[in-house]
């Protein structure tokens, strides 16, 4: 930032007024549809035959084909007119059947996880560990191949071709070994990248997060977990980075350890996480650099989990909630209701150097991560028991958590909704473990997706 860009006090007041007063609504669905429609004529069949849209051919061929087409149509019309004059009237043919996506129902393929890539394509991994990749609309799917491991821990495709998965191999002898597999060919082949890092707390360390922002840069956080409490903020942790696609992992110094995972804005650049006690880390460059500070009004013993982060201009808001009694066990039982907690809101305008606390949002039952679409608009999931569809809902607030509306989700126990943008989201199955998914638990775990902001959901059409 140059001197020219520093704001005077009156300018800063004006900026604050404008950013609070000008709060655009979401882009209407009709606009998304229009933009998609603009793209369709330009998208053709790719080499693998995955695309179903017609590509405009090269100009000379197009002219020749066009001439043939016009001639043919003219002849057919002339013949039709002549025949119509001599033939009796016949009933008009029925309208062609409308192509619709299947609505949610019992899944033929049980899906573990799925979502959108940054390229706008879809991916899914079923419970047999088979990778399925969808096109930009999720209409056409191909089977890429098996995952490299039986573990279903956090498979994720960052782009249409680059993905990764990981599992903790061992925690012993002062070392934690994490096996990380990466693919650069859309799941066709996988390469093992093993990270060996020193343990923090004997054999009880847990990996809080493994994340790749691209095929070179990634980081992981290890937490010295106290096994007598539920995992979460407030525990010692350490962060490691790779800049060579996972070949080498080095501790970050000074270490901004992310001990409860990171919440990210939709842009993938702005992220926030508690780093211990009341301290928060904020990145605005996709995790390359972090600014740490202490949140006001909290003590070092408070256990806060960052749920979401939203930004507009210089205003960054963090939405968090307290984890509650540290002696309580983590509530992951199939019948457990989602705990209700007040939404704590903090904001910064100086890239995370100083924070102020805004008015708390309403207490809501939130399971898993929340997604912010800017500093005022939030979506979250509340999870019901695995056998009760009606209890799982998509919650939405457009006034920074003050008031909420809810929409029923079509899958019981769902807790994973990821958003590509405000309209396109995916809903992954029942996070209750392999045994429950295989035996049914009365649910039908799969990947559903929406293109209207969660109003309607469609099953992946395998």
């Amino acid at each position, binding site marked *: 930032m140059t001197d020219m860009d520093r704001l005077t006090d009156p300018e800063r007041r004006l900026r604050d007024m404008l950013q609070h*007063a*000008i709060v655009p609504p979401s882009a209407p669905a009709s606009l998304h549809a229009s933009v998609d429609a603009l793209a369709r004529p*330009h998208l053709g069949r790719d080499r693998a035959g995955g695309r179903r849209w017609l590509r405009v051919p090269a100009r000379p061929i197009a002219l020749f084909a066009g001439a043939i087409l016009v001639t043919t149509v003219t002849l057919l019309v002339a013949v039709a007119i002549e025949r119509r004059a001599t033939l009796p009237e016949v009933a008009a043919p029925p309208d062609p059947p409308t192509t619709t996506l299947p609505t949610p129902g019992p899944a033929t393929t049980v899906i573990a996880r799925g979502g959108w890539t940054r390229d706008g394509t879809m991916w899914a991994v079923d419970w047999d560990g088979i990778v399925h990749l969808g096109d930009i609309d999720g209409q056409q799917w191909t089977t890429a191949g098996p995952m490299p491991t039986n573990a279903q821990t956090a498979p994720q495709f960052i782009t249409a071709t680059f993905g990764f998965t990981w599992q903790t191999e061992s925690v012993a002898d002062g070392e934690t070994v994490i096996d990380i597999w990466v693919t650069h060919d859309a799941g066709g082949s996988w390469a093992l990248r093993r990270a060996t890092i020193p343990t923090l707390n004997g054999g009880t360390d847990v990996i809080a997060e493994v994340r790749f922002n691209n095929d070179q840069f990634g980081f992981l956080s290890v937490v010295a977990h106290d096994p007598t409490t539920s995992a979460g903020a407030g525990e010692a942790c350490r962060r490691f980075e790779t800049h060579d696609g996972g070949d080498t992992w080095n501790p970050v110094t000074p270490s901004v350890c992310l001990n409860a995972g990171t919440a990210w804005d939709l842009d993938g*650049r702005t992220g926030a996480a508690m780093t211990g006690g009341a301290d928060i880390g904020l990145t605005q460059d996709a995790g390359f650099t972090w600014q740490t500070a202490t949140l006001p009004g909290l003590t070092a013993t408070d256990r806060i989990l960052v749920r979401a982060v939203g930004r507009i201009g210089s205003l960054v808001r963090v939405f968090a909630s307290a984890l509650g009694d540290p002696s309580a066990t983590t509530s992951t039982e199939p019948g457990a209701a989602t705990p209700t907690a007040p939404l704590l809101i903090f904001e910064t305008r100086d890239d995370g150097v100083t924070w102020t606390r805004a008015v708390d*949002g309403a207490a809501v039952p939130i399971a898993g991560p929340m997604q912010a679409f800017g500093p005022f608009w939030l979506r979250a999931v509340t999870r019901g028991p695995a056998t009760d569809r009606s209890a799982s809902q998509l919650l939405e607030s457009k006034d920074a958590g003050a008031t909420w509306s809810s929409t029923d989700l079509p899958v019981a126990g769902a807790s994973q909704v990821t958003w590509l943008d405000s309209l396109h989201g995916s809903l992954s199955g029942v996070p209750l473990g392999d045994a429950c998914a295989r035996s049914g638990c009365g649910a039908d775990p799969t990947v559903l997706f929406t293109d209207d902001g969660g109003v309607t959901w469609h099953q992946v059409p395998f």
Partner: protein
Amino acid sequence: MVADDTRPRIGGASAVADGHAVERAQTTDEVFAALTRRHVDDGFRLAWAILGDTQSAEDATQDAFAMAWRKRRDLRDPARFDAWFGRILVNTCREHLRRRGRSRIRQVEVLPEPGGGDETLHVGLRADIGDALGALDVDHRIVVVLRYWADLTVDDIADRLAIPSGTVKSRLHHALRTLHVELEDVR
């Protein structure tokens, strides 16, 4: 591949993500389609901030994307899509503002009041700010929105508008003088 642009942007898609869309997609048009899809929300928000109502913002954003498709071959570095499309969008918004005339510029939608106490300004103040922005001419309004709502730097604004930085500063200076008068009662 690493991102070297650490400054906050208007929002939405990142250079990192954009770079990957570019890197991984198979054809130029597929890359472009992915980029446009990722910028719908951001584009609409900026258009809304400039134009002040949903219908105009939707029209302008759609026009801008149509223009972007026609000019897509001019985009030599897809990692620059954000700035490149931003220029198209701002120009489209300027045309919309000029077409509909000054009188309608003063109308700014007032959204329902959030229930969060001091979360936002009250409706009356929002209307005052809308009126104050409406008192600016098109070019001054645009630089104010880009500078103080979208938090762009002076150089970035100059790049978006294809004008010298000095002109941006001059427009901001005049716009602030007008806004201070318009908002005197509410400051």
